[in-house]
């Protein structure tokens, strides 16, 4: 049983792997503590694979995966998982699509059967009616999460400023209404045929089971699915460093107060450079002891304390962004807030990070790491990520050590390298009228 005093790795549980003849990688991490098991599938397809005119398709497709397959009737997938006591979901981001369910462990085999059926048998069950219904659901998701909320479209606006046209991260995963409206059935059938293959997926099972059992069941349910040759890679995301000219957008809209988002491209997730950027973002903008909070929310008191921070978005296939955000306090000019943010970013170079700041950041990151691994679901997704993106689930154990190895000098150097004025994206929201809506 792992405990912090003996944990010399960020992943102190067993990891066993196998690969089926059809290329499906299977990862198992046994933990008998609770009678629950998580089944997680990472498919190496995300919105970065979408060509122009098909934005939002990877995500809309994710919805279709819950609508039945050859042996599973429409609505039956959810009913079988919840009717077994399980929780399930799926998410799509620029890099990948993941599907997962945590079940009472006696239902492990059911979860594997359901996942195999929709990996290998979705296309015959896909109907125009289902597509039309889920298209409307996704359009409502877009309205609810991005359009009807103040600042809700910030991410949609930052991406095209950060990444050039044609870059796989240029457009947001939710896609455009126009492209969603144009989506036709044949395109989705082809999408599944192209990407939903055993050799393009990682199956991870964590919890109350053992590797022998899982390997046997994986062979039983997934073993007969054919590998697909020639799965096309996403467009190359390689970019040399950050922007060479600053980019700026100002939005006047229905927002209660002016808000600024600053962003810089950094390094791809999983690199030492991104580990330094992660620690840098934590020093800068995580918690009340962070520089942003101390100097702008406390200190100068020009930013609202509940809406200030900095964080990285963990994307692996191109330099990932760090985003800094702050919202003005009543009566503060947005120009003053922008100047204040600039000064705090500059301070990371001019006033090198202290050991106390560094230790605080590392302590917060350490707690956050263990919290992420405190459920079988969190562990399964982490192993699936490292297997998919770095070829080895055991590399998950390196991340915490990577963060802890970052020195104060590394943080200063990262700030000097990354937070240059010429590579900065500035997105500003201004309220339509001076009077706030209460």
């Amino acid at each position, binding site marked *: 049983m792992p405990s912090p005093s003996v944990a010399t790795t960020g992943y102190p549980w067993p990891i066993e792997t196998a690969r089926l003849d059809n290329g499906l990688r299977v990862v198992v991490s046994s933990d008998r503590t609770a009678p629950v098991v998580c089944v997680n599938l990472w498919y190496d397809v995300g919105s970065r694979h979408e060509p122009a005119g098909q934005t939002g398709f990877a995500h809309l497709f994710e919805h279709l995966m819950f609508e039945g397959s050859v*042996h599973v009737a429409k609505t039956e997938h959810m009913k079988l998982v919840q009717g077994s006591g399980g929780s399930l979901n799926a998410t799509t981001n620029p890099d990948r699509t993941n599907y997962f369910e945590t079940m009472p462990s006696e239902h492990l085999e059911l979860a594997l059967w359901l996942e195999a059926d929709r990996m290998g048998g979705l296309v015959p069950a896909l109907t125009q009616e289902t597509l039309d219904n889920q298209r409307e659901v996704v359009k409502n998701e877009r309205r609810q*999460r991005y359009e009807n909320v103040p600042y809700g479209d910030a991410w949609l606006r930052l991406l095209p400023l950060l990444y050039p046209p044609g870059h796989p991260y240029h457009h947001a995963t939710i896609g455009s209404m126009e492209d969603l409206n144009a989506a036709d059935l044949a395109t989705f059938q082809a999408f599944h045929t192209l990407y939903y293959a055993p050799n393009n997926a990682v199956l991870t099972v964590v919890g109350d089971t053992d590797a022998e059992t899982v390997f046997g069941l994986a062979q039983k349910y997934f073993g007969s699915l054919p590998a697909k040759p020639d799965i096309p890679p996403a467009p190359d995301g390689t970019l040399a460093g950050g922007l060479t000219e600053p980019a700026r957008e100002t939005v006047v809209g229905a927002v209660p107060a002016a808000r600024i988002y600053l962003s810089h491209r950094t390094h791809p997730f999983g690199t030492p450079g991104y580990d330094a950027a992660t620690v840098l973002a934590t020093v800068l903008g995580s918690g009340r002891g962070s520089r942003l909070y101390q100097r702008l929310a406390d200190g100068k008191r020009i930013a609202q304390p509940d809406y200030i921070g900095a964080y990285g978005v963990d994307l692996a296939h191109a330099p990932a962004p760090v985003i800094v955000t702050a919202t003005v306090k009543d009566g503060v000019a947005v120009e003053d807030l922008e100047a204040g943010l600039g000064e705090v970013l500059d301070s990371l170079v001019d006033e090198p990070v202290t050991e106390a700041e560094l230790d605080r950041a590392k302590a917060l990151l350490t*707690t956050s790491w263990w919290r992420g691994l405190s459920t079988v679901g969190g562990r399964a997704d982490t192993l699936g990520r490292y297997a998919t993106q770095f070829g080895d689930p055991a590399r998950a154990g390196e991340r915490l050590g990577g963060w802890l190895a970052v020195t104060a000098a590394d943080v200063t150097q990262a700030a000097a390298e990354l937070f240059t004025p010429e590579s900065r994206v500035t997105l500003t929201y201004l309220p339509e009228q001076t009077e706030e809506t209460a």
Partner: protein
Amino acid sequence: MTLIAERPGSGAARPYRFPDIVRRTVAGGRVVAAHLPGQMLASASLLLDAGAAREPAGREGAASVLAKALEEGTTKRDATAYALALEGLGAELSTSVDWDAFRLAVGVPVGVLPAAVELMAEAARTPLLDPAEVSRVRDDEVTALKMDWAQPGPRADAALRADLFDGRYGRPLHGDPASTAAVTADDVAAFHADWFLRPGTLLVAGDLDVLDLDALAAAAFAGTSGDDLPVDEPLDVPVRDARRVLLVDRPGSVQSTLRLGHRAPHRAHPDYVPMSLAATVLGGAFTSRLNHLIREVRGYTYGIRGDFGFSRRFGRFSVSAAVQTAVTAPALADTVGEISRTRATGVTEDELAVARTWRAGQLSVEMQTPGAIAGALATLVLHGLPDDYHATLRERLLGATVEEVSAAARTHLHPDGLTVVVEGDAAVLRDELVAANVGEVVDAKL
């Protein structure tokens, strides 16, 4: 391709077990702890009888201002030193206010839990509450509430609550911008003096082989005195004679935010289990009647849910959704229709089978972390439940019959007495809502 056609059956289930519970009285306070051997993280909470119901009239939000002010310095150190001490452990103080209690919590690697509990207690028991700082925190909280209230939802929730309840329970849980603006530094200091200096209960979830509960309790209860306060009687459950539609204007909104609700019994009501299951069939599970019809058949929404919410003195039934503006009236008709059908004809065995197994399974699936276990301990304490409560609850869920659950739907759902709140573009919606004849349409007073 040869997929296996036959759906596999279930393996043998391991017997359900909630972690071992330790209850102790130390230094005048109670400790309730769950043993999680080998867990890397541990969670501790201080549960105080200082919920929003304790706030004086016109000062709704005082407890939430206090929650923020606790971290603005203590009698031992200033705000910056406090933040650095706590975050240096990898901890952040989380605070929550609900109708029944005020809760502070920390979750950290188990080795630093004692230090984190000391800091949590320092903020809870000996905050500085400098009047100038408290006034600043209050102003910041007003601004934060205005930010929150600019989103769809809070105004609709407030309109529903005001229509269903009187007095403090008819006002928003965390106050509104106006009531919070009226909170003074003296109000905050008085709220602290009145409700934060009794011992309360310390909840601990973690590896008790390496945690010293007596030492944790000594830190948590230092400087406190007094006994637990009595709990007031539950409220009655009056229901409207006719449905009523409250319109909350949100000009230009691309969606309408819907809230439908009525009052319901309190948490300790004997029908708690069948009521919960009826709501699961109607609007809790993904395959619920509401989500199936409104999302999966109609495509009107990204999601809709309905449930009973329970506190010590009252409950309420409510349905929440955001639907595309153009389908507001048909979505309401469908929603009221499903609530009416559930009341009139009850649930089926097929639906109930999913609901009872899901709810029972969630007792394992959703309780893996120390934070989730500490939350379950809070439920035991607040509602005076025994150590074997979760195991008993599981049996009761699995044993519930169609007759019991249908009877609960018949008794506790009131489709004809619903308050229906629509937050959306009133200029577009008003005539359509009047024509839809869901109920009298009036503008919400906020």
